[in-house]
């Protein structure tokens, strides 16, 4: 058993420190990069333990070939996958 706090908790705690304490103390020229670091930490934290479906090369090829043009289940399936990916990359867009 790994020691707690777990990686997700560590990332979230470190990110809060970065945003609340360090960011205001940084010169203006470094703030954009500090915010980028905070974004990366948030994505990484959300990614821990997240669903991660296998790539679907056959699906991509079938869509391109037009084989699924009339498949009513296609769009819901694509949305489900997109939702899964957004939940890590940018849940605010949902």
């Amino acid at each position: 058993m790994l020691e707690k706090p777990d990686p997700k908790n560590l990332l979230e705690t470190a990110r809060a420190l970065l945003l609340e304490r360090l960011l205001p103390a940084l010169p203006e020229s470094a703030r954009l990069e500090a915010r980028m670091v905070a974004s990366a930490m948030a994505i990484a934290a959300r990614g821990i333990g997240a669903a991660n479906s296998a790539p679907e090369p056959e699906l991509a090829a079938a869509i391109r070939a037009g084989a699924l043009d009339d498949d009513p289940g296609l769009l819901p399936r694509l949305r489900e996958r997109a939702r899964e990916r957004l939940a890590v990359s940018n849940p605010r867009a949902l």
Partner: protein
Amino acid sequence: MHPAEPLMDMGRLAAWLSEAAGAPVVIFTHARLSGGAIQQNIALSVTCGGVAETWVLRTDNAATLAVSLGRGAEFALLQAAHAAGVMVAEPLFGCEDRSVIGAPFFVMRRVSGSAAGHAAAKRAAAMGGDAALAAEHGRQIARIHRIRPPRADLGFLGEPPADATAAFIARMRGRLDEAGTPRPALEYGLRMMERQAPAPLPAVLCHNDFRTGNTMQDAGRITAVLDWEFAAWGDPHEDLGWFTARCWRFGQNHLEAGGIGPMEAFLGGYAAEAGWQPDPGRVRFWQLGATIRWAVIAADQAARHLSGQEPSLELALTGHMVPELEWDVLNQAEALHAGKA
């Protein structure tokens, strides 16, 4: 500002400029401006024939994107645009001779203003949308579209496509195959474009990166259209879709025209200058194309980071924009399908 690159021989450059200008050019100061992975810009304070002027020298860095045009081509495009009445920095001299500063370069007149996309959208949103600025963008892009093939001076653009939609879809599929990551959502968007493709229009010069953040602005007015390295022959609605796509509204989604103003003002400005009315349905069609293209570019940027050749947190985070773009692609493709059913 950063100090200028020490490897550039200013004496050699001044001699070349004097010859090109047909008058003695003296360089007083040179300072590196914003630069990127692709090119660098150097501000030159000079006198030309005794008259004080401010110029910008633009040249390639060693690592250049294979998909973008070189400086010689960009100079020719700027000349064509300037002659067509487009707001651009006036192109002065182009040099293909690598022995002068080590790489091809060109020199243009310096233009005042700022090209920060977020700041422009924020400013416009604070006033409830800037219809005049949106219309001005419409007029500028209409002028660019007056440049039509054949043009011997733009021969590097190749033959115009017989069908811009088919050419676009083939190009995007090629880039997806090259990247190697299967992307069913983007395939879905491309397939929908293929199924709903409008009849081809005669090709015009498309800027292909005409968006908020790529127009220099001063006090809410355009002073220059920037970044011509993706220009190509295509359907005029490609540019209109790129400018108005949700992904280029800088968070001001209600201001459809680039996050700065209403769609009607933008298309109205375009129609007044072009003498014909763009088709709003076709603009929506190319908004889908714009979203797919930006997703493909964003994924490629992350790949540059992942390859280890250019480790960069900015490139890495750009990759995480892809799912949002895919979500947007699915929504737009569905709407396009419903609209035609």
